[in-house]
């Protein structure tokens, strides 16, 4: 595309008072802009009309808006997709954070404009990836409460849905559930649950196709082009689907491991699940002798919140046990009922159920159960600590002890796909995803056949930052496979996952990225002639987007891609680029920075700022009127994981004194929008620091820092500290070469 550049410099919002627009016009001239205008109110209707006129009459097709942050006014500076747009942030990151009228302030603005012009010149309008045989169908795996709800909701929203259930009958866990906890005022009474109603609704929904007694034998392809093999009664059916909801649920924790709670020593020590089945069957009696249950004790957190068993809270067992205690109290208010607990976690309106059970006279004992023993007559006594009296207590004899065992997600079952052996002495590698061969989806993905687990085998993706996401594009876990939850949350999560799936098929079929770069039409392209089959891109892609052929050539799947550029950062041959984001482009932006010689005593610091958190934090520092170091030159990157090490070399050979990477928090509570990007960057930086040391270049010149969006007030100090450190090292010896 022949570029005809129009540069529009705004002097409003204090920019004009801070920087001389004429001086900036000169920079535009150096870069042979066809049109360059300064305007006191660039986002006004008149000014926009003038830009539009330039596009139409002057043939301007590449537009630089040198004004406010690219994070704002996106609806105002919105041009047709065949035009290339570059936003230069003069307001938040120059005028509002630097002293007005200073020479250094102007130099910063000039560099910002230079870098913007280089980026503009090297950008091409993206061409969306669209295949002919895209499918918008939604596959739901697992026909329990969550899966049935997700299928029903997706179908009602107008999407053809396929539901696969491994058992002959739909229902999953709820098949054996007698009644449900309350969900309506006054939240004290249990409610009936009719599985047949839900099944009937589903079967009367024309958009739903149900496979029972079936399993997913394999899933190949990518969003909107998933090819699914469904095995049913020895036969195999094929379906092409757009997105997948994984609702395979959980199983109760294996009670036979609970020897400390005497499981196995008496038939009258049962699990909550056993008790539910008894009530469902209308046959509640002591397993030991078939006599009625005259008294009962519930032991909560049986195997949950226990480092020996499940370290996490299984979330639903408190309310389930309250519900089951209510079964007994409803049948006979005089029945002695005990609940031994660590904490009662009956959130929201369930508090009212808890209160009702207290009023019903259930004996609640907080503290650890220390023993469940035969009283000599075949009944059981429980000893426990009671924090409320500060002493151990002993129950009267009870007929039945019910252990509220926790939930184990079906994704946590199975052997690891790949065992990682730690290397002696080597720096800790970025942990590859924990993927178990759990036989749920059988993905034909190079990185493994199932969703990667985050913690405890739940295939989550940091719920607080990225609700309903997994680490495989187009696959959305819902219900207890995703996290421990109760019936009500199951319903909400089923709807959430169905909506995510719908969002996915709609975006992908229009050639757009899904969360977090929603709407992005660029995608990575591989210049295969120079590929050395090193496998870094296929190994490191946080989303398993790249498969491999038998010769280890990468096989990208653009619709699995989230456009983070981690592959681009990983590639030693620099063969991976986006139309509007590439190794060469950022390298040339670095090279266009004006680096004064060492006698000017104006060091230069390159800041590669993650556009998700660090860049907004820099903006917010400006918005808050904080001023920071004038030597910094900021380049936003899609993710620190996209930072290619050659940029460090580019910057150092240009004479830039220090390179600072600002990105998201990594580790267990990561905030990286691309999960592993900042962690990968961190690992790569430790490697480059070794190289720098070898070249007798101080490794302190390159530093990485984790910032959250809320850390904006720390930005001045973070930058000043780094500047001071770099200053103490003296000027970059390559300056002037």
């Amino acid at each position, binding site marked *: 595309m022949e570029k005809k550049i129009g540069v529009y410099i705004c002097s409003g919002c204090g920019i004009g008072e801070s920087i001389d627009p004429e001086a900036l016009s000169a920079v535009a001239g150096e870069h042979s802009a066809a049109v360059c205008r300064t305007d006191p109110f660039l986002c006004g209707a008149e000014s926009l009309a003038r830009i539009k006129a330039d596009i139409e009459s002057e043939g301007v097709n590449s537009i630089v808006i040198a004004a406010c942050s690219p994070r704002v006014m996106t609806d105002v500076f919105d041009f047709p997709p065949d035009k290339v747009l570059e936003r230069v942030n003069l307001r938040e990151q120059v005028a509002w954070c630097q002293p007005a009228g200073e020479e250094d302030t102007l130099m910063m603005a000039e560099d910002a404009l230079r870098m913007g012009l280089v980026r503009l010149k090297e950008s091409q309008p993206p061409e969306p990836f669209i295949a002919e045989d895209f499918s918008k169908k939604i596959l739901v795996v697992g026909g329990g409460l969550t899966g049935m709800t997700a299928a029903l909701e997706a179908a009602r929203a107008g999407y053809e849905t396929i539901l696969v259930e491994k058992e002959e009958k739909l229902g999953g866990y709820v098949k054996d559930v007698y009644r449900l906890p309350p969900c309506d005022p006054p939240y004290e009474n249990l409610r009936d649950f009719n599985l047949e109603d839900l099944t009937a609704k589903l079967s009367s929904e024309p958009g739903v196709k149900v496979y029972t007694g079936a399993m997913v034998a394999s899933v190949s392809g990518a969003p909107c082009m998933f090819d699914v093999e469904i095995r049913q009664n020895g036969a195999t059916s094929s379906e092409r689907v757009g997105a997948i909801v994984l609702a395979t649920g959980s199983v109760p924790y294996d009670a036979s491991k609970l020897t400390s709670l005497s499981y196995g020593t008496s038939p009258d020590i049962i699990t909550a699940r056993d008790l539910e089945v008894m009530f469902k069957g209308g046959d509640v009696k002591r397993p030991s002798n078939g006599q009625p249950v005259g008294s009962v004790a519930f032991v909560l957190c049986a195997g949950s919140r226990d480092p020996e068993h499940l370290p996490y809270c299984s979330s639903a067992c408190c309310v389930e046990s309250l519900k089951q205690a209510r079964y007994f109290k409803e049948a006979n208010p005089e029945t002695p009922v005990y609940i031994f607990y660590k904490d009662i976690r009956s959130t929201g309106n369930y508090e009212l159920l808890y*209160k009702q059970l207290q009023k019903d006279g259930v004996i609640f004992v907080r503290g650890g159960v220390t023993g469940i023993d035969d009283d000599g007559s075949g009944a059981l006594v429980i000893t426990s600590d009671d924090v*409320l009296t500060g002493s151990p207590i*002993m129950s009267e004899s009870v007929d039945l002890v019910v252990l509220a065992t926790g939930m184990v997600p079906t994704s946590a079952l199975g052997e690891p796909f790949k065992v990682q052996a730690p290397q002696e002495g080597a720096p800790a590698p970025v942990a590859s995803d924990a993927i178990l061969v759990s036989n749920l989806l059988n993905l034909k993905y190079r990185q493994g056949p199932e969703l990667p687990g985050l913690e405890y085998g739940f295939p989550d993706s940091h719920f607080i930052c990225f609700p309903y996401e997994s680490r495989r594009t187009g696959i959305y876990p819902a219900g207890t496979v995703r996290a421990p939850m109760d019936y009500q949350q199951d319903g909400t999560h089923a709807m959430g996952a169905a909506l995510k799936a719908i969002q996915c098929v709609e975006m992908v079929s229009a050639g757009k990225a899904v969360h977090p770069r929603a709407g992005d039409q660029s995608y990575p392209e591989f210049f295969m002639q120079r590929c050395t089959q090193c496998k870094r891109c296929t190994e490191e892609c946080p989303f398993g987007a790249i498969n491999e052929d038998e010769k280890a050539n990468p096989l990208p799947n653009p619709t699995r891609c989230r456009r983070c550029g981690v592959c681009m950062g990983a590639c030693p041959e620099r063969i991976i680029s986006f139309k509007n984001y590439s190794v060469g482009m950022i390298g040339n932006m670095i090279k266009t920075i004006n680096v004064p010689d060492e006698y000017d005593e104006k060091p230069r610091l390159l800041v590669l700022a993650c556009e998700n958190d660090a860049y907004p934090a820099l903006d917010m520092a400006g918005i808050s009127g904080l001023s920071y170091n004038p030597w910094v030159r900021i380049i936003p990157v899609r993710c620190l994981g996209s930072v290619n090490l050659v940029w460090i070399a580019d910057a150092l050979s240009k004479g830039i004194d220090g390179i600072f990477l600002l990105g998201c928090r990594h580790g267990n509570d990561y905030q990286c929008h691309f999960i592993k990007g900042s962690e990968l960057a961190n690992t790569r930086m430790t490697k480059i620091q070794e190289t720098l040391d070898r070249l007798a270049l101080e490794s302190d010149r390159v530093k990485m820092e984790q910032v959250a969006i809320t850390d904006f007030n720390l930005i001045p100090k973070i930058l000043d500290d780094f500047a001071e450190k770099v200053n103490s090292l003296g000027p970059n010896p390559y300056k002037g070469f």
Partner: protein
Amino acid sequence: MEPKNILLEMKEYIVEMGAETINWCMQCGLCTNLCPWRLVPGQTSEEFNIRYMQRLGQMGIEGFEDENMLFACSTCGMCQNNCPRGVKIIDNVRAMRASIVGGGMPPAGLRPILGSCHANGNPWSGPRENRTKWQEGLDIPKFGPDTEYFLFVCCHSCYDPRSMKIARSIAQLLLRGGVSFGVIGVEENCCGESMRKVGDEELFQKLAAANMELFNANGVKKIITTSPHCLWSFKNDYAQLGAEWEVLHYTEVLSRLVAEGKIAPSTKSGKKVSFHDPCYLGRHSGIYDAPRGLLESIPGTEVKELGRTRELSLCCAGGGGRIWAEVPMGERFGELRVLDAVATGAEVLATSCPYCVNMLTDACTSLGKQDVLEIRELSELLVDSL
């Protein structure tokens, strides 16, 4: 530590004795922190924890019968009024006491009190015939078929020489205001409020039955009480037993008389006066404004509100049978109350309950503050001013 045994039978017994809401308690402990015992040092303060006591009650675990714990509560109602679960804590205390006292094991200090009630119809070991001794020199009408109000004088004011002045001044004010009232006399029995609170349910039932029979036989429809405790018992305990009287505290009647101009305090007092809200008048019965109105009707009175006042009033420690307890100096709530009054610069601490007068007077004396602070019953100030 040996585990303590849960005893559901004991728990059920306590519930039957009246602790109907003990299960509602979620053990948050707000009660313990609001308890006036937290404001004083000493053994009782350290041992008495109302949250813990209810926890033991919830599980029927032994240990609550310890006298320092079980009989410490003065039933001031501070915890109960603020309980987030609406637990009737005083009923729970009463029921737990009843589970012990009902078994014939009242604490030694209470035995003579209960015995006197059985024998004389009053807890003060006063002969029944002396019940009307307070009337000497006054022409107090006998309650008859045409009398509107029955004036029920608290046993304390029938037998305690200091307290008799309270009955006398109230009667004088009613006479002055032209109220149609009368007393029945020596057949009257203690209302039994404190007996019930210390857990002697049987004694209370006996006293209440006798009173109801007597009052109804005399055609009583409306009652004026001198003490907020009798007021509360007639309005609540007796109502549960089927009584249908209109029951008023004397301050309510007098404030109406003042409003109607039938009583007009005229002598200037020129004193700074603080008013102490009795628990059973304030928190328990919701009467806060009537006594204050009366105080303000006395010309020249400068009313000094205490720091903790109305709903937050600090108990004198005389309720719940505590009027008979021996409490070491330095651990008496009344002392704090006297200091509250001294801190406001009051010269007089007025109240309208015979128990409060008794407790506060003792406290004032034990602190040696009698030269700077006078403890008076409200009715006495009114009589002075007529």
